[in-house]
């Protein structure tokens, strides 16, 4: 029987009055390529941040197989956030080396690993270039190299193909698939079902902070009596999707009043007033 690598036990996350995730439980096994699928604001990024130890759960626990809290075990995770988070005034290699050093990976070993993956991503020549002029695809590839440099047990990717051209998206997907074939564990958030189906061996559908379904694509089809995943997704997420919440800080009464002084009304509002 396979042992879970990462446990998410009854995890809830609240931002003030807003519940972003409600009692989510997941067991993540070695070799899992999990597609975390949901609409904008579903709670995918919140869950990934909880898995990465960036957020602390409001209740419940995220821990590894040896019972270490994820916050104390960040060295065993590789993270690619949605906006890559590269430093523009550093070269691609310097960006990677910075993270490697914080992980305690010696420079020569970091370089060896970087060269290996850079070869697969066809970006060896770009390693010495400053990332300022990089395309979205190059930034994403660099962030992937950076997340892989310390050989993490689990790789967390937040919408890694969003905004990429066809070729770059394909390269990223191929790398993820290859990692899975080599026994790696990847959690991959996306709002595109087709992509999740192509890359992942397990799909978790998350909607309005709940896990609505968790299983292989075949299991999801069976669970919903659907013939394709799109129908299955629609069947599982019939209630309206909520707005994104954690980034929008509510304004104070005074701030709202001040802003209203300099806010023009829409033609619709003018008509309603009349």
């Amino acid at each position, binding site marked *: 029987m396979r042992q879970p690598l990462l446990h998410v036990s009854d995890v809830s996350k609240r931002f003030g009055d807003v519940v972003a995730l409600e009692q989510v439980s997941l067991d993540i096994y070695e070799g899992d390529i999990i597609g975390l699928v949901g609409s904008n604001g579903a709670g995918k990024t919140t869950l990934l*941040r909880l898995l*990465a*130890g*960036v*957020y*602390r759960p409001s209740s419940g626990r995220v821990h590894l197989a040896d019972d270490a809290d994820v916050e104390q075990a*960040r*060295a065993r*995770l590789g*993270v*690619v*956030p*949605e*906006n*890559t*988070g*590269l*430093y*523009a*005034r*550093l070269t691609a290699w*310097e960006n990677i080396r*910075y*993270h490697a*050093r*914080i*992980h*305690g990976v010696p420079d020569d070993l970091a370089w060896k690993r970087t060269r290996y993956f850079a070869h697969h991503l066809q970006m060896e020549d770009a390693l010495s270039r400053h990332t300022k002029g990089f395309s979205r695809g190059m930034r994403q590839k660099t*962030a992937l190299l*950076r997340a892989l440099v310390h050989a993490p047990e689990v790789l*967390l990717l937040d919408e890694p193909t969003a905004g990429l051209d066809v070729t770059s998206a394909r390269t990223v997907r191929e790398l993820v698939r290859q990692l899975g074939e080599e026994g790696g564990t990847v959690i991959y958030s996306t709002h595109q079902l087709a992509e999740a189906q192509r890359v992942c061996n397990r799909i978790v559908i998350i909607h309005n902070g709940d896990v609505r379904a968790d299983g292989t694509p075949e299991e999801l089809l069976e669970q919903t009596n659907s013939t394709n995943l799109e129908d299955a997704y629609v069947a599982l997420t019939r209630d309206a999707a909520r707005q994104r919440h*954690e*980034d929008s*800080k509510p304004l104070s009464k005074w701030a709202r009043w001040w802003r209203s002084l300099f806010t023009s009304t829409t033609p619709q509002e003018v008509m309603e007033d009349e």
Partner: protein
Amino acid sequence: MSRGRGRVRTIAKKELIEFVRDWRTIVAILVIPLLMFPLLFILFPLLLASEAAELEALQVDVVVQTNGLPEELGMVLNASDLNITYEPLPVLERLSSPSGDEARLRNGSIDVLVRTQMNGTIVEYALLYISTSEQSLEARSRMFDVLSQWEDNETVARITDAGLDPNETLDPLRWDGDVAESDVATQGEQAGMALSLFIPLVLAVWTFSSAIQPSIDMTAGERERGTLEALLALPCSRMELLFGKWLAVATITGVGVLLQIAGLLFAIGYLATSDVISAPSVSWQALFFLCIAVLLFSIMVVAIELALAMRSHSVKEAGSILGPALLLILFPALFTQVINLDGIEAFWFAIPVVNVLLALRELLMNRIVYSHILIWMVTSTVYAFGAAFYAARQFKREDIVTSLS
């Protein structure tokens, strides 16, 4: 080296590398402070001297309206370097009334108009000029010199005619000896006194202002650019992150302040060769405490700035908070300039910002008062730790991961 210290060093090093790669920031924070005082103390006086020489070379046109001048005054006027034209004195209620001559002064056809009339043995006069014209002001100054010269001569002549000794009459109280000799303070002490009114202000304001830009860039900037999330997912604690960034900002600020002091000392050294000011005489002990005071102050200032910038959601928001916050340093800094250090009450050395500024003033004057040192050292340490604690709380906030990008 422990892993934690290694990570702090890695973070600080990366911040410094990023900083030095932006030449505009280098110019703003490192080159300008180095050149500011030499430019202010050396080039500015040279510029003033050159302007003065230019004024001296000017030819000024003066019209003298008179109904009769004493012969000696006429001779003095004619011997001067003024271009003088004489005109008859018009009928006026008062000599100082501009009357119809205002236009000539305004259009620059004349620089000064002097009116004189005899009233018994007294020469009554008025001098009309336009204060917004440098040329007119120069002409007025030269005209006064000429008139004063005649007045001095005339006074001596009249006293002599009355059978008195002009020296005894005009100068009944006289200084005997060298004026400079009478001040028992050494030149070094005098320089310390003069600089104690200046250096603390500069140190305080520059420490605060030079830390603003790197503090914002390394916190709100990271947040805005979306680089913070990847950093927070790394196996380093938020305290390590804070220390790394603090170390980088403190290094940049420290180098900026040191360069500014180097520029200041260079300018003082230059002025010392022309006897304008001497090098201040500060003991090694005072210098040691001075460094401690600056260190504690910069720990506090940098921690507060990092905390305030980290609270902000964007670079713009951080700038609009930290910019006006400079006043929190500037006002106490200006205030401490007027506090009399003789017999000062001890409580002043416990007030934040004021305590360090007063300490710097005392130490630059080579006054080592241990009770004062104890108070400012203890209170400054408490404030520095308080600021660091506040900064740590901001760095531990969960919402710092959210970015605008």
